């Protein structure tokens, strides 16, 4: 249960990190908080000849709020993001998702960017990114680029990052107006990866009608999903007339959940219905009453 030997690199800047990654090609991997990579290396499920530790790049740890978006540096630890006042005020969905990640000892090391780069389909931060249409910023040898969350997560544990690219930041849009946000998930034990879950953002307009709604699903596919059909059905409906269970069923209708030792696809879908309905109910409640 020990990692295989590797060479350790500790760049001070993103440019230096990119250079090191490019120099060693496939043999190099980024090390962020290590909360996913180190167990994989200890179990010899992952191996790297060169580890490029981003831990000392102070420029990757920040939270910056602007009028319509909040930028979070990739190396911001999950615990810091979870108690950040700007995130709490402007991206409440992210703040509420973070306590569901593992345990506080894991959140003290695990990073916001690492969670996205790792791309576990049950992870909370990727689901929030997809639901809010966040953009992920990456730096490689070329110009830095912005990747929409919907294009970032390509499959289980797979993203559209190039091997020599570093994820540098996440940009979360701020939802103005009478909005509400909620996260609901079910895990076998507190802190385990969820069997299934839903995250929801909703804005109410004139006559308590749903002006805008986004429902994200975790654990129900190879990537975090958006429940597009459910969103379409809910939009424009008066909040009081909405049948949230029906919306929950619509949300999971087209999903193809994984089948593993934790749950069957059918069970995951049933849990997904309940979680989507509950998240939507709670988000609507908050939008209506603050």
């Amino acid at each position, binding site marked *: *249960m*020990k*990692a*295989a*030997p*590797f*060479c*350790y690199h*500790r760049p001070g800047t993103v440019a230096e990190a990119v250079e090191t990654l490019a120099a060693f090609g496939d043999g190099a991997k980024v*090390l962020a908080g*290590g*909360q996913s990579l*180190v*167990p994989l*290396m*200890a*179990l010899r499920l992952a191996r790297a*000849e060169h*580890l490029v*530790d981003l*831990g000392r790049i102070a420029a990757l740890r920040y939270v910056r709020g602007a009028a319509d978006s909040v930028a979070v540096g990739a190396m911001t630890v999950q*615990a810091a993001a979870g108690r950040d006042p700007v995130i709490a005020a402007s991206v409440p969905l992210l703040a509420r998702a973070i306590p569901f990640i*593992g*345990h*506080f*000892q*894991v959140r*003290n*090391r695990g990073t916001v960017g690492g969670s996205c780069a790792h791309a576990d389909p049950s992870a909370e931060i990727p689901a929030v990114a997809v639901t809010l249409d966040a953009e992920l910023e990456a730096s490689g040898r070329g110009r830095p680029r912005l990747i929409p969350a919907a294009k970032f997560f390509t499959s289980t544990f797979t993203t559209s990052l190039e091997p020599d690219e570093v994820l540098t930041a996440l940009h979360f849009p701020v939802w103005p107006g009478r909005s509400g946000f909620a996260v609901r998930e079910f895990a076998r*034990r*507190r*802190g385990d990866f969820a069997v299934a879950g839903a995250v929801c953002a909703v804005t109410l307009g004139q006559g308590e009608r749903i002006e805008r709604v986004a429902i994200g699903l975790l654990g129900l596919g190879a990537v975090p999903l958006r429940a597009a059909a459910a969103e379409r059905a809910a939009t424009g409906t008066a909040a009081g007339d909405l049948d949230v269970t029906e919306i929950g069923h619509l949300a999971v209708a087209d999903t193809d959940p994984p089948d593993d030792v934790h749950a069957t696809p059918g069970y995951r879908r049933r849990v997904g219905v309940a979680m989507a309905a509950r998240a939507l109910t709670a988000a609507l409640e908050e939008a209506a009453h603050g």
Partner: protein
Amino acid sequence: METQVAQVAMTVNGTPRRATVEPRKTLADTLREDFGLTGTHLGCEHGVCGACTVLVDGAAIRACLMFAVQADGSEVVTVEGLAPAGGGLSAVQRAFREEHGLQCGFCTPGFVVSLTAYLRDHPMPSGAELRDALSGNLCRCTGYQGIIAAARRAAGGMEDQ
């Protein structure tokens, strides 16, 4: 492949320490093997059990999921560093003894370190919050009731630490 070695320096329980380590050596192994601090236990070595919990720059972390090279320059506190300087037990340690919060004791350092950090940051936790805070540590012996009772007692008595 070349096996690089690195020099690391850190403060452990207030004492400056140095070691020459392979980069793949975890902080937990370095504490145990290079610094002789065997109070930090290793149960699973992949982040599940919490037995290896130590404080790095004040934050409770899993020492099996951090390479020693990452802790270079840090301030580390292990279970050996929690007791008051004059001897005796810390409030959390005392609560574990009084409430039978341990049987074989293998998991205990991880629980004690985790709970010490948690209560420092959340001095008045509810019962549900305490259970949540303890969820990252596994115990194969006690059935947890004694540990929860110890946590409640420690939460009530932090002021006299």
